[in-house]
């Protein structure tokens, strides 16, 4: 799986946002996110799996695997629900 559209990220007023570029009218908004979500989105720019994302984050953060798995699942589910993944 990977992001359906090209995403551009912007940081303003202490919050990070991702904006899909060149998307169809089905999603015409922005995604407000924290740093972890921003990293997940970055990894989703190229074809990957949930397990690969979890591994990548595990190697970077000292957090329990279940917590990271939960976070990745939440983000992936949200993106999928908004038709932002292929």
């Amino acid at each position: 799986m990977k992001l359906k559209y090209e995403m551009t990220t912007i940081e303003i007023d202490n919050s990070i946002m991702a904006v899909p570029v060149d998307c169809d009218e089905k999603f015409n908004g922005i995604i407000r996110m924290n740093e972890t979500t921003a990293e997940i989105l970055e990894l989703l720019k190229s074809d990957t799996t949930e397990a690969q994302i979890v591994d990548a984050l595990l190697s970077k953060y000292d957090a329990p695997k279940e917590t990271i798995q939960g976070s990745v699942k939440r983000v992936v589910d949200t993106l999928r629900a908004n038709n932002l993944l292929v």
Partner: protein
Amino acid sequence: MKLSEVNECILNCTEKLNISKDIVRIASDKDSRKECFNELQISYFPAMPDSTCEVLFADDFSKYLILIFSDNIDTKEHFYAELFKTATNAICTFEKYKNDLKSGNVLLMILSDYLNGRKSELTLNDDVRRLAKNHEVTSLVYYQTKDEKLQNSYYNAVRDFSVRKSFLEKIKAEFLNVGIEYYFVKGIKVAELYPTPALRIMGDCDIHLHEKDKQKAAEILKNLGFMEQIREGLDEWRYLKNNLVFELHDNLCYEQENASEKERNFLLNEWKHCNNGELENEFHFIYLLSHLKKHLIGRGVGLRQFVDLAVEIKFGQLDFDIVLDYAEQAQLKGFLLVCLALCEKWFKIDAPYKAEITEEFFKKATFVILHNGVFGMEKVVNEHDDFAKQVNFDGKIKTIITSVFLPYNAFVGEYDYSWLMGRKYLLPIAWIVRLIKKFTNKDSRKKGLYTVDKITTSQRKVSEFEEWGIL
């Protein structure tokens, strides 16, 4: 109708509307009307209306007056109805203006806080939100106040900026590939200087390039999925995609239809002031000023354009000696100094040079700009602009001459001159008739007064332009 009846109507009306009878004046002709204006120190007044009554406001907004034309009054009932309707409307409008001024000051404070990096500790009401919307500064106001009702506008601005930026990168890369020389102006250029570039709302992005490259650039935009929008009679080429609008221009001057010759000649040097896709900041500042002037004379400008100037002044690292020199060359020095003074007073920023402006002009300018919206959304003071512009740039005598000595074609379709059709040799007689009508039109008193008053109003506009440093 007797004067006693007129007075009775006024008394009834003022009592019912709870306004003082002292502020009501009766004017039966142009001269007495002018006396009323002088007495109440009204500096702006529109042309005479067709209705029985008119209501205007004094400069300090502390009072209003109702003028009545006894000539137009027939029955007491008709007069009372007209008077009541006009006065009620006037009071509503007056209250709205008073509120707008209050809300406008709140808006100015928020914008000043933004420019000076301060937090705004203000609560907004609907009037401030409406003004912010009219002046296209909602995203800045949200950033400062976190007012929930403006949140959508903030996120829309962020989204539009991000998408625009992404496409601009692609466009720039493509232009570089095929060797197209270009530069950006107005919103897209000045946004880079804002403390938060994403929050500078803009309707379109202006890309300037050489005429020879326009077709190549158009193809690039179309290949990126932009749709071409052809607009008859316009020199700029327009490209749309979702919320984005890009415009291709090959000339800085064709939009500046009111520019003086010196201004045009200065702006025609655009490419001499461009280096590696960047227009020199000082030159761009003069262009912003010229553009602002165009809209001020035309449909009106709003606060966003002045915030742009303030951003350039504060963050643009401008060499003001160069700016002053360029302004002199472009015959915009007077206007520049007035704008710098206004920016300093409105936004509490330091302007290195400025004109001395009176408190009276400052109040009037604030009122005019607050009510104009971004491009004259609320036309309060611009109703005689076409005529005023003509007077402004052609001179009063020339205006009268050109309005009388019209070419043959201009008479086509005018009922009063139907006898001229097919008889071009009678044109000098038409001119004489027009000249006589212009100065001695007694049949249509109202129309005649209107014309005279229109000239007076326009003369007033000319003096307003002088105050703005435009003339």
